[in-house]
């Protein structure tokens, strides 16, 4: 059974099927009794080689709400610090027969490399600067909470595009639905090749141009930890690429503001925007659980059909 490594290799129908199933799980999140037994007896291992609060917790809650057992491991304190190679660590965990491994790693392609050597399904919870598939799925679900369809929307993704796996996964997903995607940031964080990775992508270095007539504004965190030399000072960055309330007048009147978190108030968006009525940042977090339930069910459930191996 194939896991979920990225959005790029999924078909539009597969994306639609997950979103459809996620919508079924949405109401469950606000019920008093939240637990199902769909995955009873199954074991999910969350293996995080990079710091994460929301994604790891979200996967863990998703597994538990489906009735599965979940174990979360973070790299510090694991055998990684004892010099064991990644493939040996995964082989060791796989020998304990979990039903899936959810992993995050700072190296792009780390889950793809492992998937070639291990039979166990792997769910990519973010690999380096490559993909973060469940983030793009929950983002799409959140947009669909506010819009009837993705087709024809204009989505601006603003910030550190070069180092963003969230941007890449969103580009691949939105492109499959014919969305008009504008990527915006300083040229040092905006590789021109991005227009060639999927149809419908344009670039802008001026935030006002990117926001104009946008239905959705996705802000990204500046990933200082992945940069060799930050191109702009924090002040300069916020002045030219930070989202402030006055920008909202340029977008569609009912445009929504999204952010994958964690947010840095006063860095990539003003505090007012973060708390703005059309900011859906917390809805994204809530939808994360529903989407991850849909993904885990599809991969390890009794009638799991997984994802076609491409």
């Amino acid at each position, binding site marked *: 059974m194939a896991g979920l490594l990225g959005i*790029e290799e999924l078909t539009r129908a597969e994306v639609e099927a997950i979103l459809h199933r996620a919508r079924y799980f949405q109401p469950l999140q606000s019920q008093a009794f939240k637990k199902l037994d769909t995955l009873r007896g199954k074991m999910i291992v969350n293996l995080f080689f990079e710091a994460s609060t929301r994604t790891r917790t979200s996967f863990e809650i998703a597994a538990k709400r489906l009735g599965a057992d979940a174990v979360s491991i973070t790299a510090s304190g694991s055998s990684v610090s004892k010099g064991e*190679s*990644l*493939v040996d660590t995964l082989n060791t965990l796989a020998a304990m027969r979990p039903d899936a491994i959810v992993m995050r*790693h700072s*190296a*792009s*392609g*780390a889950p*793809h*490399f492992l998937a*070639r*050597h291990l039979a166990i399904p792997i769910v990519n919870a973010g*690999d*380096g*600067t*490559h*993909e973060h598939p469940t983030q793009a799925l929950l983002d799409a679900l959140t947009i669909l909470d506010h819009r009837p369809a993705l087709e024809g929307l204009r989505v601006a993704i603003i910030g550190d595009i070069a180092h963003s*796996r969230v941007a*890449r996964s969103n580009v691949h997903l939105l492109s499959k639905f014919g969305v008009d995607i504008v990527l915006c940031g300083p040229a040092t964080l905006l*590789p021109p*090749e*991005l227009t*060639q*990775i999927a149809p419908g992508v344009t670039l802008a270095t001026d935030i006002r141009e990117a926001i104009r007539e946008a239905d959705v504004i996705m802000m990204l965190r500046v990933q200082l930890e992945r940069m*060799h030399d930050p191109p702009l000072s924090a002040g300069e960055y916020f002045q030219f690429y930070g989202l402030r309330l006055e920008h909202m007048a340029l977008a569609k009147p009912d445009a929504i503001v999204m952010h994958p978190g964690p947010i840095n108030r006063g860095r990539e968006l003003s505090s007012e925007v973060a708390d703005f009525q059309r900011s859906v940042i917390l809805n994204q977090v809530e939808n994360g659980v529903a989407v991850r339930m849909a993904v885990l069910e599809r991969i390890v459930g009794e009638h799991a059909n997984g994802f076609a191996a491409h």
Partner: protein
Amino acid sequence: MASLLIKNGRVVDPATGFDGPADVLIEDGRVAAIERQLDGKGGEILDASGLVVAPGFIDMHVHLREPGIEHSETIETGARAAAAGGFTSICCMPNTLPVNDNATVTSYIIERARQQAVVNVFPIGAITKNSAGEELAAFGSMKNAGIVALSDDGRPVMNARVMRRAMQLAKSFDLPVIDHCEDLNLSAGGEMHEGVPSTRLGLRGIPASSEDVMVARDILLAENTGVRFHVAHISSRHSLHMVQFAKKRGLSVTCEATPHHFALSDAAITSYDSSYKMKPPLRSACDVAAVLEGIVSGTVDAIATDHAPHPGSEKMQEFEKCPFGIIGLETALGLTLEKLYHTGKISLVRVVELFTTGPARILHLDRGTLAAGAVGDVTLFDIERSWTYDVNRSFSKSKNTPFDGWQFRGGPAATIVQGKVVWQLENR
């Protein structure tokens, strides 16, 4: 008197312009005669029916890892892999432990090779001490000990002033300077060629400009100093244009291309397989076309493998953690025939030239011809036999190659060093 008669082959010797059926007689390690229907006079006879008989192939760019990194390769295993690839001579880069930056290390390599290598080993000395890019190494005594060129391959000299002084001194010792052209500041942190595939995969890019700016610098310094300057593993179209420009100006500037840089592009890296990770990285299709064109037009003087063994334990990691480099001795001829000869891009004479007179001229080696009196190094190869490369049967200690399982049309058949058959294809 020990003799070997190679009968019934098609002799191709670009140095003399000979191309036709002939027998080659080698006596006491030297070519004694090339004629139709020679008589063996009771010595050893090798039937070369259906084979091309060429001067021994020279690979001017290999890493043998000895001394110091013997878990990856040794002079003995690297030489065996060379022989199986049709090479009779190999030039080993100085990035060993310790670095070959003095006559003692050079002599050690030459002595080990004399005892253990089935092919000729010509060491290349470091440009700077420990290849640290600062103080110049002992060029003169290394030359007396046997080096044939200078290079800080893999750890290129960043300081232009140091490079200029190295070129001045190299010129006075009549040694060519080989540069692995890479601006380490521009390429810092890079994992593959910067382009659409790297952007798609989220891997950090190594821009073609990191190669180009150093080729430009070195050509200007070469003109300034008059040194013989050679660009190692050229891979980008602008670099090729600059070498072409330098040649037109009459400078002593040469370059080599590796089989992987004309056989593969960055589009091949789809699954984060570290077998495709090397420096310079696999470039764009446009650069690959420029390398092919450079080979056809003559801008490229030699094919060299940059054979760079790394054990499986180092290659079985996340892409970003894996070392750069692939092995290449046993697949070089197959890839050349496949991508250049059978596609009609170059003639058989040009194939042989790229492996013989090309490198011999760059390094001033007394090799690369079958003229009477020449050293009896001979490469026999087939241009039609179909075969599949199985890296598990490689003579190299390391198995890092993207070409495992590739099918080839034509490849080495026998390798003869100073009149001795050191490798021969089984079941021929």
